[in-house]
């Protein structure tokens, strides 16, 4: 064409037209050619961009358009054995800032100031974050819906709020504009772990970190199971992150985490924690307390309580306020941080499995079992105690807690007296090899393998240079449970074996794993590891231990009707944790119930009670008894009372309201109660105790006959630290009823009241029943 055009001009030039026209032809040709060449250049340029650079440009474009939106998998819940929620994940929001979109310092200043306020953040930190050249800075995690909505409202209002800080144009409109304002702050859905019961079973549950990862306890142990698999969406979005309608969206669904159903029962756990807390206060316990309840037939842990714990909702808070205050007073930053970390680590520690303790006299049940199993003793074998004993020639004499000696005792009496000389004799009968054999047989030499993290190993004798290498003096003290350390979980597992006929079971806390639809994925089976001793042996022990808990040194653990078998333990911790210059003691009580058909085993131990009486019988046994007295009825174990027990048992008040005073008096004496009538009226309008309420046999019922009299109250006196007769005398003076249910039916020593169900100083109506707890105050190992 160009040539033709050129010819065109040439032809014309030859033919006619002169000057300007021919010049125009030439020049038009030049212009047209240049334009066409430029068109070709444009096409070439576009071709270069689309074909040569197309792939890399498209990649950049897709990088910009496609966002990988993560779909968080919901972390599984943790339920107690009855489906009660112990840990759950709730939807929260993370607040994400895209500082690259901040236009200038006016905007930055305004955003930082207000966001810091809304999100409760440090302004300087936020300012620093706001200067990053990034699209994604997480400035706050886990805010709730209200805060999230407040943030979004704030973002929408930024423009109106700061536009006046900018100069105006000729029409009076602000010159402020930021088209990216919508992408400046983004909220992202996430989950937050929530523990509805706060500081409850916390050392078992553990807690999660900021990325929803398990850090301690079950949350850590079962992290893989609980956390599930995050999904993701690959999608194209516009600049505001809104999805665009294109088909190449890829979605990988999140798989929500599995849930755990524990063997732990929330009610039993609460019972245990309640008594531990009370015991810690009553006995000024310095170094936490542990209670483990185990189903003796399955190895399932029904409760694992450690008090001196924390709130998994806020695990970093130091729960011991005194300690927290002391830490805050530390001037040096590093030292303070260190102290804080030490305190946090201490409260997170699962004392039930991670700390070892010296079992003390509780271990005597193992020594007894070993001797019976080996046929070295029978229940009729006698042991003589003169108050001290020389275990082997050349040894120093080792004293009994009873300096006067227990005299001649059979096996049952030796256990019930917790007589150390008797046990040193048994140790000698056993010998080192057998002692270690049964130590191993009962599972103390290895970790139990419970499904919780951080289980500690025992510390056994290595006197001869190897594990289990005991000297004769080691044997002597070891036979009554001194100078070696085991974990509480090992002790309760061994005690369960004695209760269940000698089977060492695998302890566990997770009973089932459920998928997100509630289908059972896995059920924990009972695993019998080995037969430690024969059933014959254990049945004899059960009988001896029940005797011990009823008449012996362990009788503070007695609960009427529930046939408790138990053993106390008091051991020297050989340390001085609280730094008071007095050696620390550990008071423990371990047993099971009912003795004739064991259901549960329970270990209660208080580390370093600073009360005057630090013995297991005084410190741990009442808590043990309290727990058993609530746990067994809850578990549906029927109470079986002996004649003696029945005599002491409470009954219930009948209804007398509406009767005439005379009628009521007759009826009350028929029912076997005493009566006090208050007021001038003819008919009974109220009574204390009310219809159906507990009242001790032969108690007093107070009848009210008019409105005025119903206002009469009496102030509850102090009823603790008294003998039974004194308690009864004082209560009678105040017209109060006293319930002593649960008291041992017979006692050799002096019983003293140690707690009352209604506090001193409370105003109550006359006739109110007050529950008084008694314990024997003997100092028994």
């Amino acid at each position, binding site marked *: 064409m160009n040539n033709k*055009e050129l010819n065109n001009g040439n032809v014309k030039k030859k033919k006619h037209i002169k000057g*300007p026209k021919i010049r125009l032809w030439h020049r*038009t040709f030049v212009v047209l050619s240049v334009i066409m060449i430029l*068109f070709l250049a444009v096409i070439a*340029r576009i071709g270069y961009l*689309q074909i040569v*650079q*197309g792939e890399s440009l498209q990649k950049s474009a897709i990088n910009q*358009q496609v966002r990988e939106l993560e779909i968080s998998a919901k972390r599984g819940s943790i339920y107690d054995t009855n489906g009660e929620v112990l840990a759950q994940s709730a939807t929260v929001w993370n607040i994400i800032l895209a500082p*690259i979109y901040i236009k200038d310092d006016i905007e930055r200043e305004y955003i930082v100031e207000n966001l810091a306020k809304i999100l409760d953040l440090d302004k300087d930190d936020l300012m620093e974050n706001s200067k990053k050249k990034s699209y994604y800075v997480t400035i706050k995690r886990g805010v709730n819906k209200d805060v999230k909505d407040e943030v979004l409202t704030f973002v929408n209002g930024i423009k109106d709020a700061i536009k006046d800080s900018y100069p105006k144009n000729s029409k009076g409109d602000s010159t402020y504009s930021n088209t990216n304002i919508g992408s400046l702050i983004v909220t992202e859905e996430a989950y937050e772990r929530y523990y509805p019961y706060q500081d409850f079973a916390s050392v078992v549950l553990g807690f999660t970190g900021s990325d929803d990862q398990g850090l301690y306890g079950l949350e850590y142990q079962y992290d893989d199971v609980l956390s599930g698999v995050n999904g993701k969406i690959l999608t194209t979005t516009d600049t505001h992150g809104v999805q665009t309608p294109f088909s190449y969206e890829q979605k990988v669904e999140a798989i929500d985490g599995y849930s755990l159903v524990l063997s732990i029962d929330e009610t039993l756990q609460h019972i245990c924690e309640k008594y531990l807390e009370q015991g810690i206060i009553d006995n000024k316990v310095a170094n936490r307390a542990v209670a483990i309840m185990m189903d003796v037939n399955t190895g399932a842990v029904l409760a694992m309580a450690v008090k001196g714990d924390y709130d998994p909702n806020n695990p970093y808070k130091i729960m011991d306020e005194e300690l927290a205050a002391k830490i805050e007073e530390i001037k040096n930053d590093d030292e303070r941080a260190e102290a804080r970390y030490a305190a946090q680590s201490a409260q997170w520690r699962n004392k039930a499995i991670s700390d070892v303790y010296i079992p003390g006299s509780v271990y005597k049940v193992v020594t007894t079992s070993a001797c019976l199993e080996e046929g070295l003793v029978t229940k009729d074998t006698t042991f003589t105690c003169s108050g001290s004993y020389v275990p082997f020639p050349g040894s120093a004499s080792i004293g009994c807690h009873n300096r006067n000696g227990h005299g001649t005792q059979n096996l049952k009496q030796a256990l019930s007296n917790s007589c150390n000389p008797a046990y040193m004799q048994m140790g000698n009968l056993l010998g080192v090899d057998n002692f270690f054999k049964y130590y191993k047989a009962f599972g103390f030499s290895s970790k139990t393998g419970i499904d919780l993290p951080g289980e500690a190993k025992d510390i056994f004798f290595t006197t001869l240079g190897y594990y289990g290498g005991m000297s004769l003096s080691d044997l002597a003290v070891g036979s009554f449970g001194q100078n070696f350390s085991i974990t509480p979980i090992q002790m309760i597992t061994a005690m369960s074996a004695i209760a269940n006929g000698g089977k060492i079971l695998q302890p566990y806390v997770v009973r089932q794993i459920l998928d997100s639809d509630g289908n059972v994925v896995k059920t924990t089976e009972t695993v019998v590891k080995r037969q430690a001793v024969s059933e014959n042996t254990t049945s004899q022990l059960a009988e001896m231990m029940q005797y011990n808990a009823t008449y012996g040194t362990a009788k503070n653990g007695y609960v009427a009707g529930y046939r408790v078998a138990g053993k106390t333990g008091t051991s020297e911790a050989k340390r001085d944790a609280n730094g008071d210059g007095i050696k620390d003691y550990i008071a423990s009580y371990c047993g099971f119930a009912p003795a004739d058909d064991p259901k549960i085993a329970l270990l209660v131990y208080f580390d370093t009670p600073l009360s005057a009486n630090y013995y297991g019988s005084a410190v741990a046994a009442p808590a043990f008894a309290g727990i058993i007295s609530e746990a067994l009825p809850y578990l549906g174990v029927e109470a079986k009372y002996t004649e003696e027990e029945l005599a002491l048992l409470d009954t219930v008040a009948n209804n007398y309201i509406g009767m005439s005073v005379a009628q009521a008096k007759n009826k009350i004496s028929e029912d076997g109660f005493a009566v006090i009538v208050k007021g001038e009226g003819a008919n009974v309008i109220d009574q204390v105790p009310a219809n159906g309420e507990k009242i001790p046999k032969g108690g007093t019922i107070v009848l009210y006959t008019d409105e005025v009299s119903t206002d009469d109250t009496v102030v509850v006196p102090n009823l603790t630290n008294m003998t039974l007769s004194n308690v009864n005398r004082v209560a009678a003076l105040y017209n109060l009823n006293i319930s002593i249910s649960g008291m041992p039916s017979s006692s050799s020593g002096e019983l003293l009241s140690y707690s009352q169900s209604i506090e001193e100083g409370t105003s109550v109506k006359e006739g109110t029943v007050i529950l008084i707890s008694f314990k024997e105050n003997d100092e028994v190992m």
Partner: protein
Amino acid sequence: MRNSAINTKIQLSSAAPDLTRQPNNQKVRTPTPNNKKNSVKNKRKNLKDRLKIFRVGFGIDTPLLIFTLALVIIGLIMMFSASYVFAYAQQGDSYYYLERQSIFAIVGVIVMIAVSYFDYKKLAQTRIFNRFGIPISIVLLAILLLVIVLIVGKDSEGVSRWIRLGPLSFQPSEIAKFALILFLADYTSKKAKKMDNFKTGVLVPLILVVAFCALLVLEPHYSCTIIIIMLAAIMLFLGGVKIRYFIFMAGLLGVAIIVVNFTVGFNYFAERLGGWGNTLEFESYQQWQDTWQTRNSLYAIGSGGIWGLGLGQSRQKYLYLPEPQNDFVFSIVCEELGFVGSTIIILLFAILVWRGITVSMRAEDLFGRILGTGIMAQIGLQVILNLFVITDSLPNTGISLPFFSYGGTSILMLLFQMGIVLSISRNSFSEKV
């Protein structure tokens, strides 16, 4: 009848160009030279001739009309496709730009057809108040409007480009471009023989160009300034100004740029370039922000590949490419229609320019030839500059794409000017019929 005539024309145009000039003026120019009696009659007839401003001639050049309409329709479709997301985001109505542009396009096409019936020669011949020719009148009108816009047209960003008349607004610069073409076509054709003379060829036109440019720089509207300068150069080149004077004027332009740079501030132009040529990498927020539009244009073009993502399938229009209805509409065209589709459209533009210029060159007078060529060169120039901008081959200065970019004044003026070219086409090939 008409169809056959057109066919003949097409054949002639490609086959035997030398024939086109042959039997001159039979119908057009020959007022019958009668005797003296008829002198009064002649006078009347002359008057009648003068008043006869409509002229069908030999019919318009149908290919030119078809190419124009094709580009208008494709332009509308692609502008809609590119803009509906942005329109929804900005105006809450996906059809916002389509509706407005369609109205202007329809009005524009009517204007174009109507104008094609006018005799373009009247533009040069008619005098207002028997004094001013139409070209100089339009130049004066353009200058007046350019002054007015400086006074009343300031917008939110301190730029004054628009004059608002109620709901409508228009850009005087569009009129200025046409005024320049019309004036220089008239001027150079009338003074054709003196155009190599410095005073006639350079000095007088330069006064007009400088006046326009000064007013446009004040707006400021640099892209239009550049187009005015380039158009003026093309018109003067066509008009026959000597090459060495162009060198002189280029030197003058260089001096002007340096003066502006120093008076407005150092690095002023460098700043205007706004990171041009370094679009895909960026170091500062400012630069990242400045090159956003161009970068996303490149992403869009590159994403298209050979075959494109398909009509309506652009992703970059999802608010990544700001104002995709304006200058960067063709980036979305490239993304959706790919290299094949975009090349076809560019070739359509090229053919339109080619056809327009060749048809104009067959006009019977110098004025028509230069006017038509000038108009078509302007369209070609804008297309090329726009495409260079969206491909990051030139800095982002704000040049719209004819028939594609959103803008009422623009499409109206374009179609009006196409109408003139069509009018010229009625007079082409007259010799051969």
